[in-house]
């Protein structure tokens, strides 16, 4: 019984993912007075998700990160004029030079996933800031988790 229910949930999740990648849901036409402009950086942040997160000292994409990148790939297919930069970042619990290389590896992992999902590699640049551009300013595990990321931005 439990297994069946689990299976049902899994199927739903897969369908949702498929519908995102293959037939992007048209962005609901927002009222002119509110909400980000479709196709803008704000749209990416609010309705797609501009960043993926990594485990400590890792650059492997996690399931939720892949789901975010699936949505980004679909969004980039829809907004074909948009080029993006993927910036890789690291938390403060590593040495500077290694973290620069680690951030680049994270940016590359996200870029490679987007390319595999059909985004032209010519539309994506990458950069690493190591630990020099943290988004969370604290010195605790919660902040560090937020700072182990790759952030996509419209260029």
């Amino acid at each position, binding site marked *: 019984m439990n297994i069946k229910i689990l299976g049902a949930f899994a199927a739903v999740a897969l369908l949702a993912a498929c519908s995102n990648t293959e037939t992007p849901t048209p962005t609901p036409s927002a009222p002119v007075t509110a909400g980000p402009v479709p196709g803008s950086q704000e749209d990416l942040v609010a309705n797609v998700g501009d960043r993926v997160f990594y485990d400590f000292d890792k650059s492997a994409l996690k399931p939720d990160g892949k789901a975010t990148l699936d949505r980004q790939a679909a969004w980039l297919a829809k907004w074909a004029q948009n080029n993006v930069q993927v910036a890789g970042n690291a938390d403060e*619990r*590593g040495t500077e030079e*290694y973290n620069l290389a680690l951030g680049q590896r994270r940016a590359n992992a996200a870029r490679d996933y987007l390319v595999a999902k059909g985004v032209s590699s010519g539309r994506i640049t990458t950069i690493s800031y*190591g630990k020099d551009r943290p988004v969370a300013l604290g010195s605790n595990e919660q902040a560090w988790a937020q700072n182990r990321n790759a952030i996509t931005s419209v260029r």
Partner: protein
Amino acid sequence: MTNEAGETMSNFIKPPSTQRLIGRRGLVAGTAGILAAPAIIPGAAHAQAPAAPNSAVIDVNRARTDPIPVAIPNLVGSGGDADRLGRDISGVITNNLVRSGLFRPIDPAAFIGGAANAGDVPNFQNWKAIGAQALVTGKVESQGGDKVRVEFRLWDVLPQQQIQGTAYTTTQSNWRRIAHIISDVIYERLLGEKGYFDTRVVYIAGSGPRDRRVKRLAIMDQDGENNRFLTDGGFLALTPRFHPTRDQIAFMSYVNDKPRVYLFDLGTGRQQMLGNFPGMTLSPRFSPDGNSVIMAQTNSGGSDIMLVGLNGGGARRLTDSGAIDVSPCFSPDGTQIAFNSDRGGDQQLYVMNADGSGVKRISYGRGRYATPVWSPRGDLIAFTRIGETFAIGVMRPDGSGERILSESFYCEGPTFAPNGRVIMFWRETPARDNRGNGFSARLVSIDITGFNERAVSTPTDASDPAWSPLLQ
């Protein structure tokens, strides 16, 4: 120079001509004279003579447990500016010797009979009475215009001998260099090893909120004086390192959002991208002969160690592990390279031959290891160890004899003084809240045995220190 690099020129602060860097050779060439000991001392100590009984001349190991008591009265001025210079020079010498931890300058309040007249034979009994084993005397004479003559003598109090006497003729504005040069002479004559006071430190000055941190290239004397900023903060600057002989720095710059290794000329303020690589280049260090830079270049899965010739020598890939290979550093004889790699699963230290062959892991302690830096003496590799806390330590080049010198929430990036006796690194204090308040980064120096840890004062937050060679 490319247009891209050319556009960035205006971002650099040109060194004001009044702060032009002057080589030691130019400073003292033909003007440093050896002063004979005053004639009345029979058998005045010759430079290489064995130390007399009760001599102030000892070695570094003894000085660590028993710092040499030294009296440094103000150099006697010929009046006016020369008086002030005499006091200032003595002050800088005193500060240098105190900070080394190997000398114990005696409080001038204890001096009997005030400053000794330079050139005169000191009244040794008066200096012996207050416990001085070494005595520094000297005088400053104005020679018209901006020229001054600085004379100094170093005395061994108990055997009653002159150890050194030297006079320097220079311009007043060079007074700090003269004080550092004299400090180095004192260090060398009393401890039998080269000093490190006539040196500079290049570092990264940090300011502003953590998420928009401004990081500027900066340089100062090793004692924190003469600080100046070399870039204006319009782009991130990271990891500067000195050329072994030229007034040149290799560093990493984010100019035009292209993080690459650049060369920065200290004399002109000009900077130039090193090579033309498709990916990020980082972690540069000069080879000991100064003819090339060893650095890392990122690729799809990590980074490789590259050797790049400075005179059109081309680039050569030394590692190709598919992992992150970074932070390479030559041994002082140029035959080996230490670096940092996660090829074994996490960051560890490796050593290989200069051609990339014979890679061997050397770190086997608890935790991850990073930033290997070879001592100029060749006998130690300093590193950062990463665990629950961060630590600065040293080990032999074969990985044996690991010693931790300092441990805290965060510290990183050791750099050796040119005599290999002192390490500088930086330490960060954690943010105490989620707005980043309380975060700071500061420079620290420590003796390689782990004693005499001291803050190095900088006008802003500071990181990424790199010690210069002794100035030429």
